[in-house]
């Protein structure tokens, strides 16, 4: 991918492909939602041996 970008003429030093998982929760309790999301990441969404993750909570109106 880095090579392809360079081939297109872009000056890119490094490239990394990640993954974004969008989850919708009907849960007004942000603390609990974050705790749940932590467990989801540990148990399924990420493999903690080789992957790291960040959780971002976004309120929807």
């Amino acid at each position: 991918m880095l090579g392809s970008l360079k081939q297109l003429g872009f000056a890119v030093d490094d490239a990394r492909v990640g993954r974004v998982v969008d989850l919708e929760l009907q849960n007004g309790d942000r603390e609990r939602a974050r705790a749940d999301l932590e467990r989801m990441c540990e148990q399924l969404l990420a493999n903690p041996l080789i992957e790291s993750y960040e959780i971002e909570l976004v309120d929807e109106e």
Partner: protein
Amino acid sequence: MSTAEPKPRVAVITFPGSNDDHDAALALTRLGAEAVPVWHADRELPDVRAVVLPGGFSYGDYLRAGALARFAPVMDSVRALAADGGLVLGICNGFQVLCEAGLLPGALRPNHSSVLFAATCRSRSSGPTRPSQLGARRDSVSASRSSTAKAASSPGRSCSPSSSGRARSCSATRARARTVSVAGIAGIVNAEGNVMGLMPHPEHAVDALTGSTDGALLLGSLVDAARVDAAEPAAV
């Protein structure tokens, strides 16, 4: 061998997306086993003492290779079989499933090149010298130390030793340096010696037509061990 002797039964699990299940069954059959096909949604395994998780792309490799297959209904029975000392062999994607399921330590990650690596590679077994249930046939150890097996990784996966510390108790099958895995590790065996995972495909190396028959050394040991196990049932 008397003709009345029952063939050792080895289950071959098919997940949605498995594509080496038929090759594994064919290889096992040619090596004297009765390959019993099992669908991933089956909760119970048939009466077997050995099971093979074949290569392919279970559940489309969605999320991570092997990550979803771990939740397949049949996996509870596979776990129970392993805990009971039964033999479990995961090949390629099956190896990934075993790691994700926690039946083997460590994890597999994409290789740096992201390029498919497909070649016949030499591999040798290393680690503890005690006899392992899964490994080379005892009468062909010298051959197995430099045996070849079809190695194909799709889109290129490499084995990362466990960070749990248990990897030190694992014996490893190392592929030669051309493989892209950490420390040249092509496969690992658990501490108990009854669960093995490897990226090369021994089931693709049981016929001279495909370049090598050395895969029979490994799969043959599985069949032999299943035969011994079948002859001594309920040995607790």
